[in-house]
């Protein structure tokens, strides 16, 4: 308990939150980060490696790690697990053809010991597209209600990185959940 409380104090001082953003390629991970940070989203290239963004949000310092989702580089995801407070899983809600892939990858991730304590936020992205599935449907397909997730802090939020709708709502949940867990507030 001694070490844990010291760690908590250190973190409390800086109020630093480490967020890891993952998902299949073409899910809109980079677009979400850029839109949320108020950057231009018209010149986004597929992510070859990863991007790090540090931003201030509601008194927290968010260290956001946005890692490319291309099949070939998914095996490198685990290099980013260490000390992750929150995992943001981005889903292309309109890409029904790959939802099973998406589910498989997510379940693999959540089986990882290093992510055991991380809060999970699922962004059901691309709601601006007419063919997009809703958040409830995505939750159903990903099996978020299953027993496996019973001990996990998770939430799913429908969003559109293009319009920015839903992003703040999702991140709000994330920081408040992590805050309550780590910084012992409220």
């Amino acid at each position, binding site marked *: 308990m001694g070490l844990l409380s010291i760690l908590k104090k250190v973190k409390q001082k800086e109020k630093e939150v480490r967020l890891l953003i993952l998902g299949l390629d*073409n899910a809109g991970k980079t677009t979400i980060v850029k839109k949320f940070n108020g950057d231009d989203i018209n010149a986004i290239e597929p992510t070859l490696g990863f991007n790090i963004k540090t931003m201030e949000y509601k008194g927290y310092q968010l260290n956001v790690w946005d890692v490319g989702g*291309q099949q070939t580089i998914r095996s490198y995801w685990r290099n980013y697990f260490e000390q992750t407070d929150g995992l943001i899983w981005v889903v292309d809600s309109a890409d029904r*053809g790959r*939802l099973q892939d998406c589910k498989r990858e997510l379940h693999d991730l959540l089986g990882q010991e290093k992510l055991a304590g991380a809060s999970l936020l699922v962004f059901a992205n691309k709601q601006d597209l007419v063919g997009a599935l809703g958040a409830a*449907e995505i939750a159903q397909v990903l*099996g978020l209600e299953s027993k496996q997730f019973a001990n996990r802090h998770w939430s799913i939020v429908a969003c559109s990185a293009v319009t920015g709708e839903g992003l703040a709502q999702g991140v709000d949940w994330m920081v408040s959940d992590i805050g309550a867990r780590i910084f012992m507030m409220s």
Partner: protein
Amino acid sequence: MEGNKDEPAAGQHSSGDQEELRRQQAHLNFSASHQARQAARHQASNNGGEGDVGNDDEARHNEESAALFNETFTADTQDITNTLDRLVAESKQRPSQTAAGTGLAGARHAHGEAKALPGKGHSDTSAAPAVDGESGVREELDVLVDRVKGLRKRTAEATLFLTVYDLRRAQEEVGRLWASVESTRAELAPRKRFAFRSKAKAKGRDARRGGGGIPAREEGLARKRVDETGGGEKEAEGGPGIRGMKGREVDVSAEDADKDKDFNVADLDDCKVTILHVLGALRLRRLTSCRVVCGPVRGPIYVEGCRNCVIVTAGRQLRIHESRHVDFYVLVASGPIIEDCSGLRFAPAGLRYPEYQHHLQAAGLEEDAVTNAWADVKDFKWHRAQQSPNWTVIPDSERESDSLAMAAPK
């Protein structure tokens, strides 16, 4: 030098007492001469003028120390290797016990033995080289590990006088020994990985309970739900688009296409698809021998599993997976990504129809805003500086300058 206290006991496992004594003696000599040399060097540096003599002396001492070191080192490594070989050979003679050792009962048994041993004293184990069972192997391996550690320490100390070559050789030898001791240990007496027991158990229980039950049922539910929106595995993709046709020409009307719509073209064989509208996103899957001509896409273009196709379009991103022999005539804002592809060819967009410029603007892809990055192809399966073998630029002579013609409205 003190680090080698355990060594005598260990040495007795295989070689005779005399051999061990000799080795110990050599080691002591080596230590003594080493100390003497250091003292001499110290003196030499103090005496300044006599430095030359001191240097000669030092060089001689270095050689002696090195020779001594090499001798004891070789003997030690040989002995450790022999012991390892013996352990492996012995374990093969009693396969049943080794097998049992991997089970829980064996592990518990080994634990008990290990606890009892210290009371008996170290000499006891060494007196009986052919120790029976896994506990013995474990003990012996532990001793070996200590010996290799001792060797490593001595090697580190020997940096003072060893030649670079000898030093490197010794270090490599120690590394090799370490690896073989570890691998033998993994084979004969595997250590239990550290784990939080209760959690692991809980996980295991869940998996067992769910084995054929809950998860499977959930998956079934999930699939059923998708099925309701679409159909089988393929039609599960659902969403706006055209699918499953052969030998057709399809002209997608303005009602079907919209800048806020994603559009799917999937499972077509020998078809011509023309979509002269702005789209939100475009997905092309499993097309064979098709021509797809599509207006500007506001978002990404996703291509998967296509064969022998020609694709003409414009978009913000182009991601291509697992496709062969496809020609792309594209305007893209960022370099195309290819993964698990071969025989792809690229050329700048040849799209032209009356509303094209207007559509480009609607998609935010007008000329002033975007530089066409069609040739900046990034291949995830090719990490060298040279050109990837999986894609080429379509030579001018082979370009379909007429792709505008096929895009022209009827």
